[in-house]
C-alpha cells in the first residue's frame, strides 16, 4: 500500500492533526478548553481500548480500573510522597502494566460473558480498594493532586495542557495505526476472526491477547495520570463500573476496529453529557436511550457506517455473514 494522503493512515493522521491545530480558534474560554482536554484524554483511552475490543475482539468492562490506578498512582506518589510528577506517572504506568500482565493471562483465557464478568470484577475490585483506602486515596471524597511539573516548569494553563494532550493523542493514534498494520496487529485481528484459524498459522493467541491487554491498560493509565494532574483533584467516580461502560460505549459508538472511530466516539460521548446537563433530570434517561438507540440502529458505530455510505464500491457483492457456509 503506497502511503499517500488518500490512505487512512496518513490522511487520517493529517486530518486529526488539522482538527487539533484549528480547534482552538473556536474555543472561546477555559471551559471549552477543559472539555477539549477531557475529549483528548478519553480518546487516548479509547484508542487503546479499541485495540483490545475492536481489533482483538476481547471485551473489557474494567478499564476504568486501569484509568483509576494510573490517576491515583500518580496522584499518591506525587502529592503524598513528593515524587516528581513525571516519575510518578511513569511508575504508576509500570505498576499498571505489571498488574495487567499478571491478571491478564487467566482473565483472557475466558471468553464472551465470562470475560465480561472477570474484567468487570477486576474493575470493581480496584474501585473498592481506592474508595476504601482513604488514608492514601482520600476515600469517596477524593484527593487533591499537585500540578504537573517537569523540573521547574509547571504545566498549569489549560491552553498548554491542550497542546500536550493533543500531541499525545496524535502519538497514541499513530502507535495504534502502526500496530494494527504490523504482523502482530494482523495476528490480533486474525484471532478475532477465528482463534483456531490463527493458532494453526503459528500465532500464540494467548500471548497476543495479553500483549494488547497490557497496551490498552497502559494507554488508560497514562490518560488517568494526566487527568489527575490536569484537574488537580480526583474522586473515585472516574473508577466506577459506569465509567468503564462509558469508555466501552465510546469505542462501540465510534465504531469498533476503527481507530479514528474511537476518537470520534470519545469526542461525541464526552461532549454530549456537557449539553445534557441542560436537561438536568432527564440526563440519565437520554444517555441510556442514546446508548440503546445507536446500538440498535447503528451497531457498527458512526465512523464505519459513514465510511460505508461514502465508499459503497468497496463491497461489490452482497454481505456474507461470517460462518455462513455456501455449501449446498
Amino acid at each position: 500500500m503506497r502511503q499517500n494522503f488518500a490512505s487512512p493512515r496518513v490522511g487520517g493522521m493529517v486530518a486529526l492533526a488539522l482538527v487539533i491545530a484549528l480547534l482552538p480558534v473556536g474555543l472561546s474560554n477555559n471551559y471549552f478548553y477543559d472539555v477539549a482536554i477531557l475529549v483528548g484524554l478519553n480518546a487516548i483511552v479509547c484508542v487503546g481500548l479499541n485495540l483490545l475490543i475492536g481489533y482483538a475482539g476481547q471485551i473489557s468492562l474494567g478499564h476504568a480500573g486501569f484509568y483509576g490506578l494510573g490517576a491515583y498512582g500518580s496522584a499518591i506518589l506525587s502529592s503524598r510522597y513528593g515524587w516528581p510528577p513525571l516519575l510518578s506517572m511513569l511508575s504508576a504506568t509500570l505498576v499498571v502494566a505489571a498488574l495487567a500482565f499478571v491478571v491478564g493471562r487467566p482473565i483472557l483465557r475466558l471468553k464472551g460473558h465470562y470475560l465480561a464478568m472477570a474484567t468487570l470484577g477486576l474493575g470493581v475490585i480496584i474501585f473498592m480498594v481506592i474508595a476504601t483506602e482513604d488514608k492514601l486515596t482520600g476515600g469517596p471524597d477524593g484527593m487533591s493532586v499537585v500540578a504537573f511539573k517537569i523540573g521547574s516548569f509547571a504545566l498549569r494553563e489549560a491552553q498548554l495542557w491542550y497542546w500536550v494532550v493533543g500531541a499525545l493523542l496524535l502519538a497514541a493514534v499513530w502507535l495504534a495505526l502502526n500496530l494494527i498494520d504490523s504482523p502482530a496487529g494482523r495476528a490480533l485481528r486474525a484471532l478475532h476472526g477465528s482463534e483456531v484459524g490463527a493458532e494453526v498459522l503459528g500465532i500464540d493467541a494467548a500471548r497476543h491477547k495479553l500483549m494488547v491487554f497490557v497496551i490498552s491498560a497502559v494507554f488508560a493509565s497514562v490518560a488517568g495520570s494526566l487527568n489527575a494532574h490536569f484537574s488537580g483533584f480526583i474522586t473515585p467516580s472516574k473508577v466506577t463500573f459506569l465509567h468503564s461502560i462509558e469508555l466501552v460505549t465510546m469505542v462501540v459508538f465510534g465504531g469498533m476496529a476503527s481507530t479514528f472511530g474511537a476518537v470520534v466516539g470519545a469526542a461525541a460521548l464526552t461532549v454530549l453529557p456537557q449539553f445534557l446537563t441542560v436537561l438536568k433530570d432527564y440526563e440519565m434517561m437520554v444517555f441510556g436511550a442514546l446508548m440503546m438507540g445507536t446500538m440498535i440502529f447503528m451497531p457498527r458505530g458512526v465512523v464505519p457506517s459513514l465510511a460505508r455510505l461514502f465508499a459503497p464500491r468497496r463491497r461489490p457483492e452482497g454481505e456474507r455473514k461470517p460462518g455462513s457456509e455456501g455449501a449446498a
Partner: protein
Amino acid sequence: MSLLRVENLSKEFGGVHAVEGLNYEIQPGAVHSIIGPNGAGKTTLLNMLTGVYIPSDGRIIFEEHDLTGLAPFEYAAHGIARTFQNLQVFFNMSALENVMVGRYLHERCGLASALLRFPRLARAERACRDEAAELMRYVGLQDYLSTASTAMPYGALKRLEIARALATQPRLILLDEPAAGLNPTEALDLDVLIGRLTERGITVVLVEHNMRLVMGVSDHILVLDYGRKLAEGAAAAVRNDPRVIEAYLGSSVASDGAAASAGSAASAASAASAASGGGQADLRGTSH
C-alpha cells in the same frame, strides 16, 4: 524415514473413542488420503495432528520431534499447516490480509518495531504483501487480490485457506475436505492444485469424501472406520479391498440415527459406486 508418525494414537470424548489405537506413518513427498464414513474420526485425527485436540493417548512424531501435547501454534512452527472443513477464514480482514497472516511465522517483529514502524518493518511488510499476492495467484485467486473476504464465493474461500496455509511454508499440509461444497468443475481443478503442491516438495494429507479426487491424486490411502484403521495401502489396493467396500455399504445399516440414515445411505451408495467403478459421483458428505 517417515515425515510424520503416530503411535497408538487415541482420542476419547466422554467415553466415546473418536480415534483408537491408531498407528500410521506419512512418507515425505507423497499425497496421503484419509477416507472413511462420516464419524470415522478423520477430522478428529486431523485436529490431533495440528494440536487442536490433545490426544488421550499415544504419540505424534514429526521429523523425529515428539509434538504430543504441544499447542497448535507450535505445530505450525514445526512446519505443519492445515485448512478447515468448515471455513476458518478471517472474515474481518481482506483476502490478501488473510494470506499475509499466514506469513506470520516468517515475519515476526518486536513490539517496539511494530508500534514505531521501523523502516526495516515497512520494507518487510511490502515483501510480505507481494508474497501473499503471489500465493493468491498460485492457487488461482488472482481476481480477488483487493477483495474483502466477506465478498468471496465459497469455492474461492476454500482456496484462500490453502493459500494461507501455504504462506506458513509448511513441509506438511493437511486439507480437510477441500472439495466439499464445490461444484464438479471446481473440484476437478483441485487435482491440479494438489499436484502442484507436491511439486513444491510439500507432503499432502487429504481428508475427502470425493472419491474421484481421492483416487486420482493419492499415493497412499488410510481408511478409518469407527476410529480404527480399517485398511491402508496404495489407492488401487484399497479400492478393491472387500473390507472397505463392506464398511461403506454397511455404514447405512449400522448408522445410528433415523434422520441421518437417509443421507449416509446415499453417500455410502455413491461412495461404493465411485470406489468400484470410478464413477463421477460428487460425494459431498453430510457434514457441516
